[in-house]
């Protein structure tokens, strides 16, 4: 019975991971800007989630909770990284991988742009990076981002605003590079993106931003 319980949890968790892995990866790799570190963060987060969870339901609360664990794992790494002196060589190599990781049609200018955008994003405080990754890069709604981060929607908005304002001078040289939304260039996991409320949704249920809100229940 006990074994079946654990076995069942493992299976349920495997399904959950399969269903969400691409979105969770998209969050991790953009938040950290380094595929290798994102891989480590995602693995740590999944093991941590598996240890914490005693039962799963495939509802939005679980999705939010999973996202939160991944985002927190990434933010911890970002903050630790901020605490050490920058290793610029690594960052440049990592971002080169990121920028060239896209499909190749317009690899030249497109890759340079992506590189510059990622480099500029890295100059922001981690809290601002996190909201911009979720809201602007991946198209999560302000409400969903607030649930994931455990902060109020107002805080999400103000962090977005401050982050964008701070990015503006750093992206000034790219003016005119922003392409009109073309069908073939959407980021892999995010899918087609239409306006601000596009792409990623955590589900219909609203989740309290409070820490306990996103937990699966037995």
């Amino acid at each position, binding site marked *: 019975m006990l074994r079946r319980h654990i076995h069942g949890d493992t299976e349920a968790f495997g399904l959950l991971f399969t269903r969400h892995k691409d979105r969770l990866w998209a969050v991790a790799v953009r938040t950290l800007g380094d595929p290798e570190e994102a*891989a480590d963060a995602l693995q740590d987060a999944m093991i*941590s989630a598996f240890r914490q969870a005693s039962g799963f339901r495939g509802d939005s609360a679980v999705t939010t909770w999973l996202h939160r664990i991944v985002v*927190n794992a990434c933010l911890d790494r970002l903050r630790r990284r901020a605490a050490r002196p920058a290793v610029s060589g690594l960052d440049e190599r990592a971002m080169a991988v990121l920028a060239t990781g896209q499909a190749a049609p317009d690899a030249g200018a497109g890759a340079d742009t992506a590189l510059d955008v990622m480099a500029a994003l890295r100059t922001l405080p981690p809290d601002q990076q996190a909201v911009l990754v979720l809201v602007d890069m991946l198209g999560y709604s302000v409400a969903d981002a607030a649930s994931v981060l455990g902060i109020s929607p107002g805080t999400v908005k103000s962090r977005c605003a401050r982050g964008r*304002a701070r990015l503006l001078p750093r992206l000034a040289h790219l003016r005119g590079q922003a392409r009109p939304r073309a069908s073939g260039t959407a980021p892999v996991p995010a899918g087609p993106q239409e306006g601000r409320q596009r792409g990623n949704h955590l589900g219909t249920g609203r989740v309290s931003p409070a820490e306990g809100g996103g937990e699966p229940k037995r």
Partner: protein
Amino acid sequence: MRRHADAETLAAFREELLSRRKAARVSAHLAACSRCAGLDAQLTEVSALLTQSTAPPMPDALTSRIEAAIAAEAATRAAAAADGTVAAAGAGAHAQDGAARPSAQRAGPAARPPTGPRRSILALRVAAVTAAVVVVAGGGYGAAKLLSESSSHGTAASKAAPAISATGAPRVPAGGVGAPAAASNSGSGGTVPAARIVSSGTNYQPGQLKSQVSVTLTTAGGNTAETPGPAPTRRSASPFQPWPACVARLAGGTRALLVDHARYQGRPATVIVVPSGQPGTLRVLVVAGDCTTRTSHVLATTALPGSG
């Protein structure tokens, strides 16, 4: 609004964060000032540039790596559920990882005392785990201390605890079900069962993992049997030998039976043997590197028939 708006004000305006009065002034100013309208357009472009950023898709190798890690965790968790040291181990460490934050709340409903029938089922199960290493009375504290020290970041034991308590595992009663399982490895009161930490020098290979681990187990077991390959260069039965940091993470509080600092496919790796939770089988985990970091890359796992 006479003065030009700065980028932050405009960004806040776009998010409707300004007071009604201030928003009205910004709005009026934008209509009249081409410079600020241009700045406003640039802000739109910042979001557009972020939207267009791309990232590589999740590598398939990572998917299987994480699935293997979850499977390993599940196996060790099943074994750990039968090991009474875990509850004590959890008490000795504190969550530091941000990802573990919800664990405190999660432990609440899950940590209910086990009910009667459940307890007896569990007791039966514990007796059936031949490979389990049981800490008898007095050993619990030592094990907990060792675990929390070895996982210097406190992640393993602290995160494992809620999961384990969720299964309702009670402390193993001293002298009860512990007797049959502890035969090979028990200590008297106050002694932590000795696991073997060796550097066998073995270069483990995917196809030969089972047989190679069996050899190492036999060799490291202190038997006199001569085996091919170099003899272990380091062996310790001391309970105070520091464990590689990732062992506690992977073993989820279970005592590993063997830790071998060796190679896998020519690259530095650590081979860890833990009880699998299945009667008569052991779990073998191959972890990249020397297993001292927080992150543990599980390269391979396999099951091994084991006598415990």
